[in-house]
């Protein structure tokens, strides 16, 4: 490592503490980046320390030694303390251990939460897909401009028809009818669920449109009711609590 010649003399003055102002700040900035000049500065300080030997002088008085040792005894150094370790010196270790335990706990909890979140995200995606399908189905079924066509055997005159889709456990029901005869004013058709046991249960009041089509979606039915058959009667517009004979249409489950 070489010394930069332009700083050589400044280094000597600096080692003695005599460099001031801009010269000092310039040199200190240079020393930050120059290992060669830093090494030379150490050498110069070593040279400088030799000047201390040029003076002999008396030895320090005995009182100076006593004063120092008294001060030393009165100021035990912190590094000696660990030999008499007290509980509070364990605080950093305990804190570190507690933090480690907490970190593990939070990691486990975080992993569980991430798992639950992923499961919920999958459920949400499934529900969204189902909802989209349901919307499409309902939109088609309920569209006012939908074309309703019932296919029957060739050369068969149009007949009133009804179709029920019923899910017992949910109590959900969709009913679609076609070619229904027009019905007098003040009157309406009423759909009935005929259970395996007990009286017929009202399943919706409806009037056919001018083409004879009609639809009932999810009338209020108790879930879990097992249906033996479905029937349609003509009732007052407000509906009835029990069917009025005769039954104009009827069908049983397949």
């Amino acid at each position, binding site marked *: 490592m070489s010394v930069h010649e332009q700083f050589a003399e400044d280094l000597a003055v600096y080692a003695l503490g005599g460099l001031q102002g801009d010269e000092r700040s310039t040199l200190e900035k240079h020393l930050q980046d120059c290992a060669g000049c830093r090494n030379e500065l150490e050498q110069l300080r070593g*040279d400088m320390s*030799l000047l201390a030997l*040029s003076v002999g002088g008396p030895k320090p008085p005995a009182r*100076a030694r006593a004063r120092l040792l008294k001060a030393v005894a009165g100021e035990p150094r912190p590094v000696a303390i660990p030999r008499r370790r007290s509980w509070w010196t364990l605080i950093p270790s305990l804190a570190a251990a507690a933090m480690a335990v907490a970190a593990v706990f939070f990691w486990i909890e975080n992993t569980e939460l991430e798992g639950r979140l992923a499961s919920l995200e999958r459920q949400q995606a499934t529900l969204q897909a189902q909802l989209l399908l349901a919307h499409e189905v309902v939109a088609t079924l309920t569209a006012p401009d939908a074309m309703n066509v019932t296919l029957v055997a060739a050369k068969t005159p149009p007949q009133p028809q009804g179709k029920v889709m019923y899910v017992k456990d949910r109590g959900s029901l969709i009913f679609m009818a076609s070619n229904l005869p027009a019905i007098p004013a003040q009157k309406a058709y009423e759909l009935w669920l005929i259970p395996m046991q007990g009286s017929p249960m009202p399943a919706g009041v409806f009037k056919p449109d001018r083409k004879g089509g009609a639809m009932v979606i999810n009338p209020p039915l108790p879930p879990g009711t097992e249906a033996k058959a479905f029937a349609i009667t003509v009732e007052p517009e407000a509906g009835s609590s029990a069917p009025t004979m005769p039954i104009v249409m009827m069908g049983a489950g397949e």
Partner: protein
Amino acid sequence: MFGAAIIGDSPEFGLLSAIRAGSENAMAELYDRYSAVVYSVALRVLSDTGAAEDILQEVFMQLWRNPGLFDSSRGKLGPWLAVIARNRAIDFLRKRRPETDIDDVVVSVEPDLAEEAQRARAMEKVRGVLSGMPSPQRSALEMAYFEGLSHSEISAKTGEPLGTIKTRIRAGLLALRKAFAT
């Protein structure tokens, strides 16, 4: 012979280790080895025994409070203490706050200064070098070292150019180095 010395097995290394462990006896032994160097430098600068004793106290208490300030892999303890004592004494003389952090001082020089005989031989050699210098050079070096004057102040005091003062100071230090290198 100059240069940094690895002194892990030296007596001073053992003393410093004991001081790090809190040994007051080790501190007393260290004081017995180096107090003469520290005190003589402080007294030469300050010309006041009471002030020199304060510097002596301050230097050793700093070492007691933080032995790690001295890096034993980068020089001898004696010269390091001499530099610290001189700097503190100059600060005291000039009524200024310490300008050099104690842990900034690294001294690469070989003489231990712990043994009185060794110190006496070194003193004789230093005095020989100083007496062999041209008077203006020795004077500039001593004004800088013992009075803490800047090169500008020395220039103003002697009427010599700044560059000349700088050159003399550096040449004086290099002459000391050369004497101890052989």
